[in-house]
């Protein structure tokens, strides 16, 4: 599998994400935000955490309008896989590839700590390494992770089983405890917690590694 990690000015989890992809067996290309094209034959795009463009205007808003993001949207529309973590999730909601928006945390604080996530019964390649209802521990590190969707969209997400992860103990005020959602075709996942930071024993746990191993097995390593 060939994955690309997009690098914006202010990205700070790009190398972590690249290492997580590589350890799972993927070939990884780093792609700068001013590039207009993704590498040929790409399977997955990873949009990393960080503070792209200093979070100016709104988190992810400037990044979502960068040249490379037009190619990321086209890749997703062709049925390509896209994984957005933390700032990456914010970017994906700003592009419209995922529904909703991420607001300032309800307690107005930057929160950096491991949290428990419930793996929802959501049919997507990203959850292949988990069982539904399984509880995993993965860190969060964000100031704007308070997920918002209106009631109608929430009902739709539930009906289509598109909620991938929920917080066991909601840290940030997110609607319906939502920590991650997938697109309608189930190939785009956005999540605030950082599985790439819980991907080897030295991180203090490997609950995040199961995600990378899971989709890798499904998408076949190179």
């Amino acid at each position, binding site marked *: 599998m060939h994955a690309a990690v997009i690098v914006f000015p202010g990205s700070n989890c790009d190398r972590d994400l690249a290492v997580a992809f590589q350890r799972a067996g993927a070939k990884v290309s780093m792609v700068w935000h001013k590039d207009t094209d993704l590498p040929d034959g790409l399977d997955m795009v990873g949009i990393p955490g960080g503070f792209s463009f200093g979070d100016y205007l709104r988190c992810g808003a400037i990044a979502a309008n960068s040249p490379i993001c037009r190619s990321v949207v086209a890749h997703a529309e062709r049925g390509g896989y896209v994984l957005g973590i933390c700032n990456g999730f914010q970017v994906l909601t700003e592009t419209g590839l995922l529904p909703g928006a991420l607001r300032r945390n309800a307690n107005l604080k930057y929160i950096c700590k491991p949290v428990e996530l419930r793996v929802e019964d959501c049919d997507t390649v990203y959850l292949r390494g988990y069982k539904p209802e399984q509880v995993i521990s993965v860190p969060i590190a964000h100031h704007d992770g308070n997920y*918002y969707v209106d009631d109608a969209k929430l009902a739709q997400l539930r009906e289509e089983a598109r909620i991938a992860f929920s917080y066991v103990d909601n840290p940030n*005020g997110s609607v319906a405890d939502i920590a991650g959602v997938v697109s309608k075709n189930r190939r785009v996942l956005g999540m605030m917690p950082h599985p790439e930071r819980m991907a080897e024993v030295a991180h203090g746990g490997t609950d995040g590694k199961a995600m990378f191993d899971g989709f890798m097995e499904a998408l076949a390593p190179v």
Partner: protein
Amino acid sequence: MKAKVYVMLKEGVLDPQGAAVKHALGALGFDGVEDVRQGKVIELDLAAGTTEATVREMCEKLLANTVIESYRIEM
């Protein structure tokens, strides 16, 4: 030619910053502040002849996230 764009969280979308400002005003002894909503003002210096429709397009594409925010334009 100047335009001002006022961006606010939509009614019904929780505004934790506004709530914190309200709380702080109460702590300073200002009674009777029933609600506070915090938003932003964006000033645009535009070439002559730029239409309000163009500014609206800027709002829809970038300046506001219409999932959670509303905007008002003053030309």
